[in-house]
């Protein structure tokens, strides 16, 4: 019997965006672990907490949502969810929170470890569940909790009263962190961080907007990986540089007629909701095998924080996707669909996310009507693998494809 010949993957190009982005995401964890070992304080931070604050203060933070997604993607989600449920947490609670609260107890997950927290930075501009989750971390570890409360905005614009409320909290949290950690706020450093964050955001938005070309120069599932950097490191210099490289590559792909989407791009869809991390391959293959490219997602917009000054920053954090009313959320998605020539909307009804999914049926109806595209939803979960049915997903995606095909045929007939 001859020796098995394995195809070896080529070594990644260290100048590629993929390599750079992967390194930044990995470094976020290794840097925090090293900091903890040196005896520095390490915090746990909500994904849409203003990173400008810990970055300017020079604090090391980890992101439990990012960790939970990583654990779930590598198959450990159910194990940790079970652990949390054995403590008494309902399985109706957000799976990220269950994984995180379980990790607090077991303190080890080979899929993605990170240091235990010395403080928590919470912001509820993505959901109110964050407050409850972080309260429980803080009480279990007996550590300080710093909350920037950004109430859900029922209006289209952010009011001046809300900006003022948010600004005052920013300063309150900054001063409290200075006192607790001994680190000092510097306006100069903030300006630098603001520039880095602005550059990363602009590059991210421009890179994701390259999907305006037909075919798209990238597979939208790439964004789900790359956005980790926008979550954890958008205030770092390297993030802006890596995003600039990503934009360059997407532009080159377009010019060269290539794409990271393998195969013919027959249909273009928008994917709505957080990824089904435990079923990433299945959800990706279900689309790719049918020639469906997910060309855009609200993530293309969600992590683009562009502003000119401190008040602008407050307003930007009060205007993230999950804190917007239905009308603004709808209009942003309609724009993404139109700009990127989307032919169908695939909605992930995510059991973990009440706020994101809670008015999705109405909003997606309105988007479908405004864009003249079919809308199909499937049931899933961002991290609890038990809440997803491969068969249902496959049927729904097939249905969406047939509707898009019928739409295409109708247009050709005209």
């Amino acid at each position: 019997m001859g020796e098995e010949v394995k195809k070896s993957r080529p070594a990644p190009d260290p100048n590629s965006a993929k390599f750079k982005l992967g390194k930044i995401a990995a470094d976020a964890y290794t840097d925090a672990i090293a900091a903890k070992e040196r005896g520095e304080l390490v915090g746990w931070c909500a994904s849409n907490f203003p990173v400008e604050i810990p970055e300017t203060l020079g604090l090391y933070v980890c992101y439990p949502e990012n960790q939970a997604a990583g654990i779930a993607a590598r198959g450990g989600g159910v194990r940790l969810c079970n652990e949390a449920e054995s403590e008494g947490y309902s399985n109706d609670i957000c799976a990220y929170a269950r994984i995180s609260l379980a990790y607090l107890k077991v303190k080890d997950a080979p899929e993605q470890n990170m240091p235990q927290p010395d403080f928590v930075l919470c912001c509820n501009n993505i959901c109110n569940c964050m407050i409850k989750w972080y309260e429980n971390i803080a009480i279990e570890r007996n550590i300080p909790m710093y909350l920037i409360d950004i109430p859900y905005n029922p209006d289209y614009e952010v009011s001046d009263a809300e900006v003022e409320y948010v600004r005052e909290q920013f300063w309150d949290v900054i001063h409290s962190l200075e006192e607790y950690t001994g680190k000092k706020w510097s306006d100069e450093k903030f300006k630098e961080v603001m520039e880095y964050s602005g550059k990363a955001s602009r590059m991210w938005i421009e890179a994701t907007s390259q999907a305006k070309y037909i075919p798209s120069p990238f597979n939208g599932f790439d964004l789900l990986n790359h956005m980790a950097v926008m979550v954890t490191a958008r205030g770092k210099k390297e993030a802006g540089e890596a995003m600039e490289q990503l934009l360059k590559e997407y532009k080159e792909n377009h010019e060269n007629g290539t794409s990271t989407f393998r195969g013919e791009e027959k249909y273009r869809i928008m994917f709505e909701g957080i990824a089904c991390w435990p079923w990433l391959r299945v959800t990706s293959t279900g689309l790719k095998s049918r020639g469906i490219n997910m060309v855009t997602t609200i993530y293309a917009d969600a992590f683009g924080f562009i502003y000119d000054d401190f008040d602008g920053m407050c307003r930007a954090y009060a205007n993230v996707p999950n804190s917007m009313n239905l009308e603004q959320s709808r209009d942003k998605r309609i724009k993404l669909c139109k700009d990127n020539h989307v032919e169908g909307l695939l909605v992930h009804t995510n059991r973990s996310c009440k706020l994101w999914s809670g008015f999705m049926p109405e909003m997606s109806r309105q988007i479908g009507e405004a864009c003249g595209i079919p809308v199909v939803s499937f049931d899933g979960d961002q991290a609890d693998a038990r809440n997803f049915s491969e068969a249902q997903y496959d049927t729904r995606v097939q249905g969406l494809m047939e509707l898009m095909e019928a739409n295409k045929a109708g247009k050709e007939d005209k």
Partner: protein
Amino acid sequence: MAVKELFAQLHEIAENPRAQLDKYLAQGKKVVAVAPIYTPEEIIHSMGIVPMGVWGADLELNEAKKYFPAFISAIVQSILECGIRGDYKGVSALVVPSLCDNLMVLGQNWKYAVPDIPYVPMSYPQNRKPAYGKKFCKASYERVINDLTIATGCKYSHPALRESIKIYNEHNAVMREFAELASEAKISAVERHDVFKSAWFMLKEEHTAIVKQINEELKNGPKADETARVYVSGVLADAPQLLKVFDDNGVKIVFDDVAAESRQYRTDCPEDFQDPIDGMAQKWANMDNCSFLYDRDKKRVGMIVEQAKAHKAQGVIVLMTKFSDTEEFDFVPIKRACEKEGIQILNIEVDRQMVNYEQASTMIQAFKEMI
């Protein structure tokens, strides 16, 4: 009037909110629906409007399913279902606070599902104690006043709010006294609940007058003889069949931390502010001990243990509203604290969709044996 007649009167009101709504409308009054958990009722009342609570209903969900996925609290879903069915016809607006994810999505769906009843958002600050929190709270109250003025044509004035604050503070005191008296008096779980539930459908001054009489009767009436005494926590303890399980099994509810019941009456509004809206913001700042209010220290957990002990409860029963994640997060610290203090704890999942209470009945019977 004998206490049983007073209870019967409140039972009738608790069971027939539509009749109350029609009565107030016939009197030429405007009525505004107020969603869980807290809304600035004093302000609404001061504008000459009758605030009426809407906490959903035990009904089959049909139309609401077009708007909500299955994992949204049935309280919220059934509020929308009632709205779509026309149960709230005649109401001038619905005020919804921003206190949990379920409530946020209710407001957004309401605009499209029930377009003839305006949605009025109330954005509460969670960092409610610092001056900036109070300032934002005041701005939100002023927005509610503005929206209600447009929706009803009713006007706001400081003197009227001062009067309403007094009426509400008196009602709070009377309800707190009732809860204490009910701890030792011979009173069924259903009767106790009727007193709390009817408050949502009456002008507070009318409710105060009746509860005052009940309190006087309870002071001189027979004492409780149940052997099993429990403290109940949750969002709602509303289902008649479930309450009957308590009564049928001789399990007495001695005190509660139920959002629709005692949580409403813990905090008075200070009356000494020049601008009474500042007083309302101070009231919000003073509120605590609730899963829907940010609390790094989880003071609510300690409060539950202390109140259970103070009322000689042998156990704590949590009536967990399914998909109320706000409450679900707090359950674990509550459970741990009770276990540490040697207080038995039982978690019963409840839902506006429940039709069969056999399992709950078995759990309560078994719990009684344990305590």
